[in-house]
């Protein structure tokens, strides 16, 4: 019998699960969240938005296809802890390089397996995301519980800085370069600049600390547009990037934001944000694009959302803001757009979505949003010429 070291998982409200050690031995704390995707664990693990979170996988079998060198979404695994029911004992896929268990151990990620992940998920659904601890060293749940309650909360913490790149770097356009975009890395995923580059965008990825000057300095003649990535933490705790975005919007710079970039866009437009009970984390969420009436199946990973009126438009200093996308499961705001006042032609100026059109992992239904961004950039470029 392959003896697995015992491990325990204790939630902040005291609920305890016993299981077996998985990945690195030790003790870890974070915010417990569940992900309902049936594929893409490698992308999930390396998604910076999961920084400081302990991810519970609802899919029972995890690790079947091992770990390869093409699918990571960033330079490392970010999850603070990993909870699965039945980890694979062998990796089987032609692209696989090593087993998930080894990868977790190598990167020092503490995990637990063999727990009733469905019971745990239902608990989080009913009580909401909460702090959790996993330990392979502690045997007394009470002792672990005490330490869980000392760990920091997710609400109110600013984390982008912890995941962002230290140095600016450039992702060249595939083929002929059409546009130059400044992309603020708040926890950006590899696939995002890739999707832009595919469309002829030269992407200048900047650290989260970038200033307006940094942004305006990219490219030979400044950027054609600004992009904000996804990222961890509470949007309400972020100010610098909100002000930066407002300045950019003030100068009429086209903007596209994803996830955290949607929340900051919301704040820049004067909307509030709030924490969802247990968030959206999965790759099967139905979202309606209200501009076309079509439903797209989308990849989500967000615990916070924008608090904006679903109907009608809101006048802001930068134009008319409206909700462009909603999640059909629970009517959560999934996208915002900023247009000129109807009187002035009502042209699109800036937009953002709460979910992940770059889709890694996840369906490609929302890929059109990158085209929409290109159209926006082209539109703007045309103006500039006209203006000059």
């Amino acid at each position, binding site marked *: *019998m*392959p003896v697995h070291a015992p491990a325990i998982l204790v939630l902040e409200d005291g609920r305890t*699960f016993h299981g077996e050690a998985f990945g690195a031995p030790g003790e870890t704390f974070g915010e417990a969240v*569940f992900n*309902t*995707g*049936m*594929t*893409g664990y*490698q*992308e999930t693990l390396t998604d910076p938005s999961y920084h400081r979170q302990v991810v519970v996988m*609802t*899919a*029972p*079998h995890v690790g*079947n*296809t091992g770990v*390869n060198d*093409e*699918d990571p979404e960033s330079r490392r695994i970010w999850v603070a802890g990993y909870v699965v*029911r*039945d980890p*694979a*004992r*062998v990796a*089987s*896929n*032609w*692209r696989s390089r090593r087993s998930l268990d080894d990868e977790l151990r190598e990167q020092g990620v503490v995990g637990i397996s063999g*727990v*009733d*992940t*469905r*019971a745990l*998920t*239902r608990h989080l*659904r009913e009580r909401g995301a909460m702090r959790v601890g996993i330990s392979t060293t502690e045997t007394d749940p009470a002792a672990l519980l005490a330490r869980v309650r000392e760990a920091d909360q997710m609400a109110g913490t600013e984390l982008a800085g912890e995941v962002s790149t230290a140095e600016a770097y450039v992702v060249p356009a595939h083929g002929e370069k059409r546009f130059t975009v400044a992309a603020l890395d708040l926890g950006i995923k590899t696939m995002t600049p890739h999707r832009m580059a595919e469309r002829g965008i030269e992407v200048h990825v900047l650290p989260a600390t970038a200033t307006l000057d940094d942004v305006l300095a990219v490219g030979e003649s400044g950027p054609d547009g600004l992009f904000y990535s996804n990222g961890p933490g509470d949007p309400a705790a972020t100010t610098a990037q909100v002000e930066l975005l407002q300045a950019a919007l003030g100068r009429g710079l086209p903007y596209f934001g994803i996830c955290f970039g949607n929340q900051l866009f919301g704040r820049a437009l004067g909307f509030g944000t709030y924490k969802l009970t247990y968030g959206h984390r*999965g*790759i*099967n*969420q*139905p979202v*309606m694009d209200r501009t076309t*009436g*079509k*439903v797209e*199946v989308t990849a989500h990973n967000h615990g916070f959302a924008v608090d904006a009126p679903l109907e009608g438009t809101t006048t802001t200093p930068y134009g008319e803001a409206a909700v462009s996308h909603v999640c*059909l*499961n*629970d009517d959560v705001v999934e996208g915002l757009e900023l247009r000129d006042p109807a009187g002035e032609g009502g042209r699109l100026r800036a937009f953002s979505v709460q979910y992940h059109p770059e*889709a*890694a*992992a*996840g*369906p*490609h239904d929302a890929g059109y949003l990158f085209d929409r961004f290109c159209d926006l950039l082209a539109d703007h470029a045309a103006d500039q010429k006209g203006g000059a």
Partner: protein
Amino acid sequence: MPKRTDISSVMVIGSGPIIIGQACEFDYSGTQACRVLKQEGLRVVLVNSNPATIMTDPEFADATYVEPITPEYVEKVIAAERPDALLATLGGQTALNAAMALDKAGVLEKYGVELIGASIEAIERGENRQSFKQIVEKLGGEVAGSAICHSLEDCFTAVERFGYPIVVRPSFTMGGTGSGIAYDEAELRQIAGAGLDASPTTEVLIEESIIGWKEYELEVMRDTADNVVIVCSIENLDPMGVHTGDSITVAPAMTLTDREYQHLRDLAIGIIREVGVDTGGCNIQYAVNPADGRVVVIEMNPRVSRSSALASKATGFPIAKIAAKVAIGYTLDEIENDITTRPGGQSTPASFEPTLDYVVVKVPRFAFEKFPGADPTLTTHMKSVGEAMAIGRNFTEALQKALRSLESKDAPFDWHQEWVDLDKAALLEEISTPHDGRLKKVMDALRAGATAEEIFQATGIDPWFVDQLELINEVAAEVTAAPELTPGLLRRAKRHGFSDAQLGKIRGMSADVVRGVRHALGVRPVYKTVDTCAAEFAAATPYHYSSYDEETEVQPREKPAVIILGSGPNRIGQGIEFDYSCVHASLALGQGEGGAGYETVMVNCNPETVSTDYDTSDRLYFEPLTLEDVLEVVHAEEQAGPVAGVVCQLGGQTPLGLAQALKDNGVTIVGTPPEAIHLAEERGAFGRVLAEAGLPAPKHGMATSYDSAQRIAGEVGYPVLVRPSYVLGGRGMEIVYDDDALRGYIERATAISPEHPVLVDRFIDDAVEIDVDAIYDGEELFLGGVMEHIEEAGIHSGDSSCALPPITLGAAEILRIREATEAIARGVGVRGLINIQFALGSDVLYVLEANPRASRTVPFVSKATATPLAKAAARVMLGETIAALRASGLLPAEGDGGTLPADQPIAVKEAVMPFNRFRTRDGRQVDTVLGPEMKSTGEVMGLDADFGRAFAKSQAAAYGSLPLPQRPDGTRSRVFVSMANRDKRHMVFPIKVLADHGFEILATQGTAEVLRRNGVEATVVRKHFEGTGPGGEPTTVELILGGEVQLVVNTPHGSASGGSPRIDGYEIRTAAVRGNIPCITTVQGLGAAVQGIEAMIRGDVGVRSLQDWARRART
């Protein structure tokens, strides 16, 4: 887009009789569709020739036509009903092909009927392999290299390009009919030849073989607004080369990265759009090369398929129901997902993709034992007759549950045999060709030391699955080695799906002891919920499966529950008919209108059925039907609230076999008590019941050895009928004519079920067989129906055609039958349904057997007499009296199936055989001789005012229409006649009538002479055993197979003279079955056929709905 307002009536075409590749999954989808369309206020017109389906119950459609699904008859229905639209994508290939034919014939246009779901063009594009190929390539996808061939010559040219092995696949067929893998020229000739015949467009695809690649399926759903979702991904454990219907399949896909999966998803969406399936479900199959991930698209089915049913049960996303809604205009976001409820009570929309937090495994069930000589190798041509599905929290648990759900004693893994007799090399060789039970051999190979790599090389089974099998072996080894069964070890074994029986076998103790220990240690399953969303939202629908996890989700309840045990996987002898009765019980006992108000709890493991639709009962447990699994469900429900009892009588032999053990474990069995069941099933006991009632049974005895059998045969006299006791479908039953045959049988037969002795019965020759279904409440007998078989006794009741009301029996005989039935019901102590078979020979009414349960004929009788027998029986089982049911209107106020009005329409049941799907290793057709062992997979019903027309319909629905004197090409139709001496006199008149109508008569020597003497010209044809003549004169069989004969009339030559009694007749009949032409085997049948043909000549064979028949009966 809301519902279309321009459609007020829709015609739905069902899939007809159950055949291999097209089973009751289409009753499930059709029933859902009808329900939905009716709820939407549309007038639903249904055509389906299969009486055993729920969908053909009058309440599911406004006009239900149990008529042949042929263009001629369907046109008559269209002419009568004038529907606005036709929905043909839910009735399998049969409905799709019927729609195509109606369109070609210009019928749809003539009556202005719009085809909804998929247009003719879309169906063409999807089903025609060539145009489909172009579409896939246009999308940048790949298909296997192939060439369309219309002749064998084409095929050979194609082979020069691809080399052997090569795959042959016809267009417009389902279940791989006519397809196969050819390894050399001989095989190619044989397979391609058959394929060209099988394809309605005499077109086959010769395709490069990609055997051994991983095989996947995606279930796709699209609406009018072009919203597309993937409902489910399915991975085949058996790689390419084994038909998905014969493969062990797993949902969701287990060995794909997200990149690979999304690639398949993108292709699927592109394909459904390009093909232009406007709305509804379709199924797309892929092959993935394990070495480099290269993807090849295999095919698409532009309709709801077998896999759709599986996907619906696997995910909780009701594909057929949603397909019906989008077909009438709704968009996915307008349709509710009725399983989920979000905070605030509303449910989430159907425009999402289900996500699973469990694993689903489907395993096929085969019936090779019934077709001696049939090649059991699995290939591209589907051979399984049924399937079982299981749900677990991991693969090992789901797989082991699925294997024990098959109810065949060799299916579950077994570590009993000695390690030493495992020969690795031999095992690796054995598993390199796929066959039923291969997985067990893989387990043995692993235990014999084969590495995962070696297994993969031999089978192409993905290493991840191989490791899971290895894991099961490891756990078995732990259980073997452990000093005692600790809670930890038990829980671990259970989490990997081990049954108490398996553990007991390993530990050398009985399953009961293991269960005792387990319960003492508090190791019991919990029940999780299938909720489409991995618990992201609360689930409103109690659709449960067991797992050895921490938290159970069974909700407490106040109302008393009735637990109904289903019938498990379809098999020959136990199929959809039993599911029909279970579903009716659920309706009759439930809380719907007219229900008795119980909470109904269904337990079953067959994904194809209506009973496992979460809409059917208040609670559904998708569990194996073994003692262990049922006891745990009962326990869980007892924890939840009061349990009135368990229904074991409606699911066929499966639950019946559990009744006694359940009772022994303190479970209340409602209806006929186990002791009574024993009285009827155990021959000795039953003999005493008959003796007391003064009823004759064929002389018989029980033998445990050849000598004792021979002694009995001596006493009762040959021919004798031998069989093992406790069997369904006449398993292992044979008619033997002499000692040698008897010895041969005993040697084979006793192996079948050693627990039970062999029964030896006097075989009643030349007897009319009668089937009776009745309900008994302890006081009153309700005679449901008396069916007169058209074939004589000796052909299994499930395989012979029959008529209701009986066509030759008089009131006196029916009275005798009623009295005998009541005496047996009373003597046995039946509470509920009983089925009895009698043989009426030389005016003696012999009792052949009594089955104290719902029978295969219950749905047929219920439909023919417009009386809900199963519903009434269920109520009687829970204590209501027949008198009360008469008062409440569930049963007719007075009279019953034995006292039908004179103008009662005649219903004819005809059985449908699967012979055309089985071949011997050397490619010959398997022997199609019919006998006391049941072989049919399905049945059809012909209903009309008189026997002739009803018979004509039954033939049209089962085989193809009775012939008219003139063939379409203007030539005269040929009738072949060969009669037993005793029948020659009665044949003259009807044959003369046929001749006068212009038929050309062929006959065997003796028959021809008699005819000639009576002024009927007949050409003499050689008998089968005479062989082809010196001048190459063909034999009867050769003529029939050559398509030279349009009708066969042959009454079996009963006399033992001539060495080969019966055989020649059987050869002729089976040739007819192979040639798909009607074959009459009795004088009554001949008369019937003549009446039918005359009705057809007069052109007055009309169509009428069940509702209309019922209305006429009442007025």
